């Protein structure tokens, strides 16, 4: 199971990194979203995996680690706020510069792509 989870985290981070390196805002937003999934999972599993051990007093004999869960809970919400902020930043960039390139500048210009 641990191998599976590690593979999932690896894929999420890898895909996230690849998309973050794209030139247009929409894929970058997708990339950041994927990255935050990966990071949240990473932090979550730092409490190790345990089945059916809900960290509620009285509901399990050997409760799982509640601390990473509390951390990730707020991380999810803040991650959403950050994604929203990014989206709006991208929209503002689109509105101001009429381009969705991460470096700004108007479309049709040759960007410093393949240097």
């Amino acid at each position, binding site marked *: 199971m641990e191998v599976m989870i590690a593979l999932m985290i690896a894929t999420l981070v890898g895909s996230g990194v690849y998309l973050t390196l794209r030139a247009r805002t929409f894929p970058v937003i997708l990339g950041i979203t994927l990255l935050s999934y990966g990071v949240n999972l990473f932090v979550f599993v730092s409490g190790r995996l345990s089945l059916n051990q809900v960290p509620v007093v009285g509901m399990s004999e050997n409760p799982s680690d509640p601390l990473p*869960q509390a951390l990730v809970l707020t991380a999810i919400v803040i991650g959403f706020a950050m994604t929203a902020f990014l989206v709006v930043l991208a929209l503002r960039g689109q509105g101001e510069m009429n381009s969705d390139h991460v470096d700004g500048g108007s479309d049709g210009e040759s960007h410093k792509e393949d240097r």
Partner: protein
Amino acid sequence: MNLSILVLLPFLGAALPPLAERFRASRTLLALSAAALPALALALMVAPARRVIAGDTVLSSLQWLPSLGLDLAFRLDGLSLMFAMLVLGIGLLIILYARYYLAANEKAGRFYAYLLLFMGAMLGVVTSDNLLLLVVFWELTSLSSFLLIGFWSHNSGARKGARMALTVTGLGGLALLAGVLLIGQVVGSYSLGEALASGDAIRASGLYPLILCLVLLGIFTKSAQFPFHFWLPHAMAAPTPVSAYLHSATMVKAGVFLLARFYPMLAGTNLWFDLVTLAGMATLIWGALAALFQHDLKGLLAYSTISHLGLITLLFGLNTELAAVAAVFHIINHATFKASLFMAAGIIDHETGTRDMRRINGLWRYMPYTAVLAMVASAAMAGVPLLNGFLSKEMFFAETLQSDRLGAMSWVLPLGATLGGVLSVAYSARFIHDVFFNGEPVNLPKFPPHEPPRYMKVPVEILVALCVAVGVFPALTVAGLLAVAGTATLGGTLPEYHLSIWHGFNLPLLMSVVALVGGVLVYSQRQRLFRWHARLPEINANLIFERAMQAVARFAGALSGRLRNGSLQTYVAWLLAVVSLVLLTQLGPHLLSGERALLPLDGVALLAGAMLIVAAVITAILHRHRMTAIMSISVVGLVVSLVFVRFSAPDLALTQLSVEVVTVMLLILAMYFLPVRTSAESGVFRVSRDLFLSVVVGGGVGVMAFAMMTSDFNSISGFFLENAKPGGGGTNVVNVILVDFRGFDTFGEITVLGIAAMGIYALLKDLKLTSPGADATGRPWARDAHPLVLVTISRPLLPLALLVSVYIFLRGHNLPGGGFIAGLVTSVALLLQYVASGVGWMHHRMPGDYHPVVALGLLLAGITGVASWLFGHPFLTSTFDYIHWPLVGKFEVASAMLFDTGVFLTVVGATLLMLANLGKLSLLDDKGAGAAYDGDETGQGGGA
């Protein structure tokens, strides 16, 4: 009395002159305002000075940054007393002199302020009892001297000279800092007292050669020792009072001061002898030779200063106690005669309008009084008997004869010393003869020159009187001060010596005679020498320095231009490349052998995991098919929430699920407004580079995750699990952590949420976007923005969803749920109405603005925290109790509940603020701002 006040006084005094200038004080009043606090400092020093003369060392200390070993520790012993007197005494004379030197239209207030800043910094250098503090003041002298040298900032020479001085002495200061840090490593403390006592340990340490080189680099740059001497002549672009102060008595003396200060710590080794003596000898001869060929009056004095500093350095290098005393003695003597000579040169410059000695001749007839003063000071510089320079020079000659370190080559030292003496006499003779005699002045800008104002001569008179007094009656004047200063320098007992004019016929006397006669002879042959010098290729230090500086600037520019090419993608790639490098070099197979037993893999988990992996990869590959990408990314989100369910985190699963809904809405809005086509523009190289980075970073993080999951650990969570019920009054430990144990963190987090929402609101203000009519393939967006089925189903859902939300909120303390999740559920329920029925419809039924909700939530959370102060508990301490409600029965009420309400309100307010405002954009776009809310059931709500 506390010594730190003494050091503080000049700094405080720096504020007075600019203030006086603001009130249009007269020039005399300005000078008085500048002199007031240094004079006070000098007066306050009398009491501690008595104790020092009696043999005490006065210490005072205040803690500043104890964690760094940096204390405001000051000491006044013989050496610092001598220097403090030079700094304050000559400083006061300089202020008096500058009163007459500066023209009426110059910013005298600023000048005095800089001068006092420098004075304070210099006073700090000589009285610091902490090595780090010493370096701080050392750098302050470099900075304030930069301001002083560049005071005539309209003059390009002044600017360049100031920059060169700052670069050279600043670099030396860095080396000194490194050396001092190493000393601290060896000694285990930055206290100067302890470091001085650990001289043996430092000299025995393997770091000693490095320490010595670094410290000497600082000293040699500051004291203009060969080959770092070139900045000093260029610093002569400064106003003459600055040269008289900084370049005779103080700033350049900081280097030799440090030689004296660190003498017990670093001296006594062969390495010290070789480095210090060699540098001193080279500087002594080179400076004297160059001084002879200067035609600029101040240039002559500058090179002569370099030469005399070399002499002092050479003496310290000899490693004998008597030589160190002679060095200290020469520091005093040089300060007095050189400061007066600079002032005399300033007077001549002032009265004739030039400093070129080929034009200034025969001034004896025009300003005999100044001439006498200057001639006496020059004679002291040459080492003529009955003047102070003679005494220390005799000691110098005698000491060079004592050294046997060079073995059979020992004769080199006295020979070099005599040669230095010859040249010194020659340039002193030139200063006297060329300026005051030697025919008539040639084409002076101001003619005829006359005596300066009465009080401008006073500082020169005082200093020249000191030269004579010390020269004639050394035992009555300087002996006491020299004895304590010498004792402090050696850090022990004073050697036997006699300050007297006549020691009988001996070798040093012969050397003096040779120097005097030889000097006059050399001067008489000057025309021939000048012709020879004119044929030599010219070395322009300024040009070389400027070229070096430009090369550095070009290199830095090229480097940063390559790294900072304006492409964010490149920056991110660099960042990730560094991460990859770390991962590739640090990760190894040893990480894959954890000691924890693995959980078995089952079919469901395998399926879900495979789905997530495939969906994530699809998102990455097909990101240009935006609808597909959004769908696949929502699959990823769902599987992630399933992972949370499976591995005992119901709170997280609920949160992830509700966030997933709003995230997808957000992405659809982004898709709607951003350009329909994401053009494929990455070349093969870029794609393969990015693929490499993603594989390495993703793989590395995966390996780390695996290594972490399979290794045992100690968690602090036991505390939370045990205390959740008795301490926090709740059984859902995650929620208790959020609202109670780590409530302050949560408070910070909802604040961030609120700020993000406000930021989005501000960014969206006045934003105009055009919405595309069709998607990438040309399909038009659905006209029916609010499908009837959705509208009909969503409305009855609202009260149900709100009820669920209240339930989740109330049970949150004991079962999965709480403010965050309840807030998200409420937001989703309300947003569904926006999507189904449109912004306009909602606007009639909901408050238009959500900022007050965010503010209210934060306020509530904050007040809950503050309220615990009223009961004498720390911020956000929670309390709880049980009450009996009719029908419901026993029910728990916790103050954390109120805090959770604050969280709830903030989450609802922030989420709606973000998404509702985004949704409004489409309305603005269609109908213009005025008609935004008119349509009830029309308009493209949310673009969905």
